[in-house]
Each structure stands twice: as structure tokens, then as C-alpha cells.
């Protein structure tokens, strides 16, 4: 690890004032410390923002606001979350380990970087780590890589579970910049596709910090599920994951949400499948048809063709689980 200056800020504007090209912020540190140890992140100064950002979950006029510094464990155990937005808790608990969840922050969860093994191995080319150096995963070991939304420069996937649930629930990201101005970014616009700039993971402005996450009230609390298929049953990143939520009237689907992790550079919404589900009867045939729509245009890498049938099965399973109250 390269030596660095360390300071602590107790207010968001104070932290933002310290922002420059060689500064990085540290909250839970569950990803950044790894990146620093591996010389992937080499900040000259590190600003501890654990006391600078909101750490509360608050009910607002429209729904709920989750402070950027709310750690994963209290987020997953929060009474309001469990009652009204249980999909969030399900997704959080499917990720990492209890120790990591105790440390990891909500804001940091959005900003965690891919777990593509080549990104972490500085002896190998990686366009995300070093723009223009090439992608090792495309001709290499790409079992965990993307099956949708990738480019010829990067096939990495976003590793978060929480973000999949937030994307499904149409959350928004409230960011605050140096001038004190806040703006709201739709969650599905927050993360980027790799395109020709895979080194950029998201659209967080350079001089801004995530302040909080906002979710509007919705009718999905009763019928939602998070299914994560992985090589081991805890502390493993998703091969594919599915967040599913249904607003049911009797057995008719009024509205549906379907999003996935482990498939793309960002949490992926299956909008066409959602559209299909609307107005249909909630049953196995409907779910299978929706899953078929989701997978119809996917194109796998050399080693992850399995992800397409696995995704289909995971979507069907997640939708089915929405019915098990």
C-alpha cells in the first residue's frame, strides 16, 4: 500500500472541500482497502467520511430516505425497511458476510468496484483499471462476466446485491456537490455501461458525494423475492441474481419489477419482461414466458453460456417465490 495522508471530516461540506484528483473517501472501507492493498487505488490522501454523512433511515413525505452512511447490518434489520421495503433487506442479506455487512455503508455499496479477477491482478491488462491496456477477460476466464450490456472493451459485472434491489424499486440517488447543491439521479441512470470508457463505473459527479438513497412508497412489500445463484451459499458473488417484485390484485399482476445482478456492468432491469407481466395471471406459465422474454437477446461469453438458462431459472424461481408470503 502506498503511504497516504489520513484525515477525518465531520460534515459533508467539509469533506467535499477536501476533494481533489488525488483524494479518496473512505466509509466502511470493505472494498477500498482491498483496492489500496493491491495498488489499484493509490490515493495520496484519504478522508474518513463516517461522521460526515447521514446515518439514519428516515420516513419522508414520498417514501423513505436512507443515509449514505447507514451500514448494511442496520439497513437489513430496520423495522421500516422490513415492513415496507423488504426486498432491500433480502438483497443485503444475500451479500457479503456479517462482518463485512457490519462495516459496509450504503453509499459505498453503490460505489464498490467490479470483482472481475483481472481487475484485481495488476500484472494483467484491464481497461477498467488502466484505460487502453486491453481486456483480459474477453479471451480469458470469463465465467463470472457479463451477458448483456457489455462492450468490446469490458465485460465486467457490478458486484452489488443491494443495488439490484434499489434498481428494481426505482430508487434515486441524492448527491451533494462542493457548492452545496444537491441533485437526484435515477438509480438506473447512476451506474454506467462500459462502452468505450469502462474505467468509469458511474455518473457520480467528480466533485460530489452520495448523500442518501430515496425510495418512493410502493405496493411491492407483500410479494417480493431476491434469488442469488452462486458457487457457495454465503460470501460469494452472484453467478446471476434476480430481484423480483409483484403488485398483485387477487392473482392478477398489476405491476412487476424484475432486475438482475451478475449479468451486466450495472444492475440490469428486464423492462420488457416487466411489461409482459403487467395484467397477467401470476402463475408458472406466465413466469416462464416472462423469463423467456428476458433472456431472448442475451449473448454470453466463451465460458458463461450457462448464465442464460440459469438466469431463466432464477427469474422463474424469484417470481414464484414472490407468491410465498
Amino acid at each position, binding site marked *: *500500500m*502506498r*503511504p497516504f495522508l489520513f484525515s477525518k471530516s465531520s460534515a459533508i461540506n467539509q469533506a467535499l472541500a477536501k476533494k481533489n484528483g488525488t483524494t479518496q473517501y473512505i466509509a466502511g472501507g470493505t472494498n477500498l482497502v482491498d483496492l489500496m492493498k493491491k*495498488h489499484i487505488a493509490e490515493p495520496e490522501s484519504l478522508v474518513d467520511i463516517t461522521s460526515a454523512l447521514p446515518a439514519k433511515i428516515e420516513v419522508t413525505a414520498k417514501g423513505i430516505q436512507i443515509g449514505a452512511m447507514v451500514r448494511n447490518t442496520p439497513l437489513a434489520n430496520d423495522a421500516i425497511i422490513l415492513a415496507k421495503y423488504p426486498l432491500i433487506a433480502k438483497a443485503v442479506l444475500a451479500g457479503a458476510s456479517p462482518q463485512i455487512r457490519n462495516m459496509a455503508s450504503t453509499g459505498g455499496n453503490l460505489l464498490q468496484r467490479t*470483482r472481475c*479477477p*483481472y481487475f*484485481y*491482478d495488476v*500484472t*494483467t491488462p484491464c481497461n477498467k483499471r488502466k484505460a487502453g491496456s486491453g481486456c*483480459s477477460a474477453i*479471451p*480469458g*476466464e470469463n*465465467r463470472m462476466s457479463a451477458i448483456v450490456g457489455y462492450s468490446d472493451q469490458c465485460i465486467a459485472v457490478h458486484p452489488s446485491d443491494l443495488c439490484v434491489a434499489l434498481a428494481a424499486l426505482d430508487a434515486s440517488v441524492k448527491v451533494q456537490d462542493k457548492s452545496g447543491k444537491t441533485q437526484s439521479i435515477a438509480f438506473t441512470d447512476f451506474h454506467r455501461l462500459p462502452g468505450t470508457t469502462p474505467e468509469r463505473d458511474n455518473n457520480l459527479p467528480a466533485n460530489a458525494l452520495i448523500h442518501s438513497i430515496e425510495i418512493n412508497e410502493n405496493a411491492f412489500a407483500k410479494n417480493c423475492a431476491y*434469488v442469488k*445463484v452462486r*458457487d*457457495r*451459499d*454465503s*460470501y*460469494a*458473488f452472484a*453467478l446471476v441474481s434476480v430481484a423480483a417484485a409483484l403488485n398483485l390484485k387477487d392473482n392478477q399482476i398489476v405491476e412487476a419489477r424484475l432486475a438482475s445482478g451478475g449479468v451486466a456492468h450495472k444492475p440490469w432491469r428486464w423492462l420488457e419482461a416487466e411489461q409482459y407481466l403487467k395484467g397477467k395471471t401470476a402463475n408458472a406459465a406466465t413466469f416462464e414466458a416472462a423469463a423467456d422474454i428476458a433472456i431472448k437477446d442475451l449473448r454470453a461469453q466463451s465460458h*458463461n*453460456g*450457462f*448464465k442464460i*438458462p*440459469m438466469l*431463466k*431459472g*432464477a427469474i*422463474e*424461481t424469484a417470481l*414464484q417465490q414472490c407468491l410465498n408470503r
Partner: protein
Amino acid sequence: MGFFDEPFDLMTPPEGRVEGVAKVTGSGKYAAEYKVNGLCHAVLVGSTIAAGTILNINTSNAKQVAGVLGVITHLEKPVVPGMADEEKIKEARFGLPVFHTDKVYFKGQPIALVIAETLEDATYAASLVSAEYREDAKTVDFNGTLGFVSLTPAGKDRGDITALNSAAHSIEAEYNIKAEVHNPMEMHATIAEWTADDKLKLFDKNQGVNNVQRTFAKLFNIPVNHIEVISEFVGGGFGSGLRVWPHALACIMAAKLVKRPVKLMLTRPQMFYSVGYRPASWQKIKLGANADGKFIGIHHQAKNGTSVYENFNEGITRVTRLIYNFDNLKAEAATVPLNLSTPTWMRGPGDCTGDFAIESAIDELSYKLNIDPVALRMKNLALEKNPETGLPWSTNYINECIEKGAQMISWKDRKAAHSQNIEGDWNIGYGMAVGAWNAGRGNASAGIQMQKDGSITVQTAMTDIGTGTGISMQNIAHETTGISKSKIKIELGNSNLPPAPSQGGSNGLSSIGGAVVAAVNALKLKLAEHAALQNEAYKNVAAADILLSDKGISLKTANSQFFISYASLWEKNKLGILEVEASSGPGAERQKYAFCSSAAHFCKVRVNRKTGKVKIERLVTVSDGGKIISEKAAANQMSGAAVGGIGMALMEEQATDERLGTLVGNDFAGYHFPVNADAPIIEVAFINKPDPNINPQGSKGLGEVGIIGTAAAIANAIYNATGKRLRDLPITPDKVLLG
């Protein structure tokens, strides 16, 4: 056998470990945890290419970092006498001639070592070392390369395998297993201190202090007793500590260079290419039986990966000769050199690899024959004698393991045909397999120190890598002396203590148990010698006639008036600490009998048809380890091995990238071994019958058989659930889905 005949009291929980409190409170010191005055830190720099020659190393940036004390490369180093030239390197048989060559054989091979005041300084400075190379062609692709090496006979043929051609039913299939990495919880570490020019003290993580001592005595050309190796607590080994690895030598070289004690601890990513691994393997089995299920013969071919600088043959076909009667048998093997570090023994080495293929093939054959897999095995087990040597088994209760395991898992609930047991999206299946291991014993020594109050300390150089050696030594000392366990202290893992073999191959307890008994006998005779000065009845008595207790000595054959308290014995003879040492080892029984440990594994799985996910619902492991000396430690061994078997079956895989010549995902995010969520409570049972010939306590080693057969039991259960015969490990969800 008079051992351990006390009835098991259900109200008393089985005992833990003698070192348990020290472990859970943190007072027990692992190698890297010792406080040594003047300690500094060393960090290895690995090559960034997989094959070639180092042309130039730039260490000047590293040397400028504040706190850096020195840098070692092949160009600047204290020369190790045993590696002074090519000839000596060959003779030393150390493996990688670390810092004594400009050749690079695998990516991550140490090319420099940075020593600094703090770990942080050393780590940072190490990141500033760079090198230029001339790259050579390389390969890390086992399956792509194995076709280029030819098989050679692995042992003598039995009969003639052309007999297989007339078999009523036969199976011919190939099996592939990816490389697996031991990954003990404690990373390998060494603290090295030269206490004089030719005297070395090491705190080191390993599985055999005397082996470490011998290795470095040879390399540095100094007497063995000038090297002290301390390994009191070892956080798991699984075979990775059975060799002395380059990092330990590098640490000693660093201590020589900076003339200070140096600590070197491998990082977790370095653990993947520094201390061995189970090599990738390929096997082909041809197995045939007559119509009623009697095996006709087997043709077993196997290849495993090795490094380009050293040959490691895993011995995959050894187990083929052990368990069943094959009148006709042919075994062939080869190793495949790759630009990877040298593999080594990993739990159940060779046998658990070979056994997966054999036990999978037998299962497959059972469906062809329409005979229950349990019945098919029972019909063909070699229960009387070792089919290879012809020697009668001293004991072999593998059939009882199978019977008990079948009963425990309720084997009768299994459907004979596959895919018949379905609940929603889940298919349920049962599978079983057996495993066996040649039960060994080595020469070992133990010492006893006795105090006036009757308390004793039992000592050996043998390590306890978590297997329960310490508690078992205490149990044996208690049973043979009659002294309360609370008055028996155990000291081990130190080369100053009586010598013992390395703890590997399930030989630890089998070896040290006899030494403890011998030391107890020596203690009894020594006490009797002193007692004889007070009472002539003690003159020339046999150890077997001497009784000890917490209070004193007496004679079995005489009445209680011969009792002499330790206090009076000590006072009369002006004794201080009474010390004895004794050795014990295998003898003529090895010419008369064959010895094996065995286990039967039964598994119930659920397989999700939609996602390919396999959930192990039950895993039963019944083993014959002779007399069980310490039930809790033994059960811990078996359940740990079974969990290792789950890893082998379902997820452990060291991926490689052929284009880049590199390991992929060499960390805990990339390399999956099972966690609690992946394993049910492992149901462990023992046959628990003493082997009267192997050693005084009647115990046979257990560490290996817990994993030999586990993966096959799981794969066979997956077949029973789904009809998918998966012959390549690990069976990750993708293989189930596409299989």
C-alpha cells in the same frame, strides 16, 4: 486391550483440547505472533511472468523508502551454502532454488525480498521493485497439455486386463479434477533469528519441526542441534506444512543479511502459489463385472500436473489396489509439467483423487447391473487381506462402516432409479462411496517430566495442527498412568523436545501414541528403581506390574502396604524433576499384517432443476480408525474432512489463464471453499474397535479417510437425483444445469 474402557457418560460433554483455552483466548502463539526483540519485516516480490529469464531487477526505488534495511535478489544475497552451485542445488532437493537462479518457472516466483523496519514499509517498498525479463514459451493449461505426456506403469500388473473384454458389464469413462488449494486459516509464516553465526532459531508454521531442522541444517551446513524450531500452535496445515518452502529459506537469508530477527508472513494471494496445492488431474477408468456383479478387473490411468522444475506424482492409482478384489488390474500414471509452482500432498493425497474416479465408476456400474451400490461394494470388498501384498488385514471394518452408514442415512429411502424423488423444483437423491488409506506408523519419541506433587508433563517435538494430538497424548498418559488429566500437561511442537515424525498421512497419533506408552513405562521403571530403595518388592518389577496414581506408586500384585507416596519418594531420594524419554515405532507386525483405515460416506442431496444449485441435505461419515482415543477431536477431524470433500465436490477450483500464464482469482473472493451455509451438520460415527497390532493404543489414523470418497458420494447422489453423471470436479451449478 485395557484402554478406554470407561463407559461413556452422556451427562458429561466430551472433552475438548488441552490447548483449547489458549486458542480461544488468544494466549496461544502462532508462528507470526511471537514478540522478538529487534524484529524487522520481510516481504516477497513475485515475478510478473510465468517463464523466462530475469535480465535486470531495479531495486533502487525500493531502497529509497524510509525504513528499508535491505533487498535480496539473485544478484545480491547471502549465498546459501547448500545452493552455492548447480550441483549443490540438485543435491539439496529443495525444489525451487529461490534467489539462486535467474530463471523464472512460474508467475509469482520470488525474485526479490525487501526487508524493512515495519511491515508497511516493506510492503510498500516491495511494490516498487521492478524487473525486465526475456520471456519463454509457457503453459499452465493442464488439460491442454496432458496429451503430450505418455503414461508409464504405476506398479505391477495383476492378472491380465484383457479379461475386461469379456465382462458382462463394463464402464469406461474419464474424470477431471481441477487444482485445489489447502488454504489453512493461518497463513504460512516464519520468524528467523541467527543467535550466533551458526545457530538459528525459527518460529515457523509447519507440520514437522524436525523436518524443518534437518532441511536447514543441510542447506546451511550446520549441525541439526544448532537449529531450534518452534511451532507450538499451527492453524491448520492439510499437507501444506509437510515441506519446507522457499519463503522460510528467504526469511532466514534475510535475517543473515540484516543481522536481525526477521518475520516473513505470506499474504493470502501468495498462499496460492507458495506452499503447494492439490494438482489438477485427469483419469480414465475401465471397470468390468460379470452378470452377478463380481468385479473382473480395472484399468486405471491417471495424470496430474506438476511444475517444470520439480516432479510431483500424486499417487492417484495407489488406492485402486487397496479396497476391492480386482483379479485383473493395470495402473498407469504420468505427470504433466506446467509453469506453476510445485504441487504437494493435500488431505487424502492421491487416494481421494483416485477414489473419486473408482467410486463414481462403481456407482455407474451398479445402475447398469441393476444392483444396489451398497450390495455391489459388499460383494467386492477385499475384507480378508490386502489385495496387493496378500498380507491379512490386522483389522478392516469397512463393511461395518457401510452397514452403519446405510442405516444412519436410511438408505432404504433411496429410489433405485434416478430422478424419482421430486419436490417442486428440487430433485432429491442419495449416494454413497467408500474410502481407505494405508494406516501407517512411524518412529517417535516422547518424554515425561514428573514433579514431587505427582504432576507430569508429557513432551514431544510433534506438532498439533488441529488434529487433537495434545488431547490424545493426555488421554493415553492418563489411561496408562492413572494420573488425573488435570495433573497432566502436554508440551509439543518444539525441536528441543524428543524427536517425532511430521504430522501427515494420518500417522501422527499412530506414531506418538506408542512413544507416550513407552515413556510412561520408562517413568514407571524409574520410579520403581527409586522405590526399591525403600521397599525391595520394587526391585526388578515389570512396568506392567507397576501402578501409579495421583498420590504415589504401588504394585499390582502386592497389597496396599507397598504404596509409597511421591512425596516420600522424592524426599528419601532427594529428587528434583524426574525425567524420562523413550522411543517407539513399528516392528515385526508390519511383516505379518496389513493395516488400513477406512470410511463410508453417505449423502442426501437436493438439486434445483431451474438453477443447478446443489444443496447437501445430509452427509454421514462412518469410519474405522481403530480405537478412538479422543472422541471429540476425532469427530472434528472427520467432519472437517467431510466439509473439505464438499469443497472438492462442489466448488474448489484454482482457475488459470493460459494466455497470461497466471492463476485467476487467487483470493477468497475468487477461490471458493465451503462455509457453514454449504454444509449440513456432518453426521459422524466410528466403528471404534481397537486394532490390536498397529500400536499400543490400537488407533488407526483418521485424517485422510474423512475426505477419501466424500466427493464421489456427493456426485453419486447428484446422479441419483437427476440422472446426470458428472465426472468433472468441482460440480458447480453451471455443470449441473448444462450436464
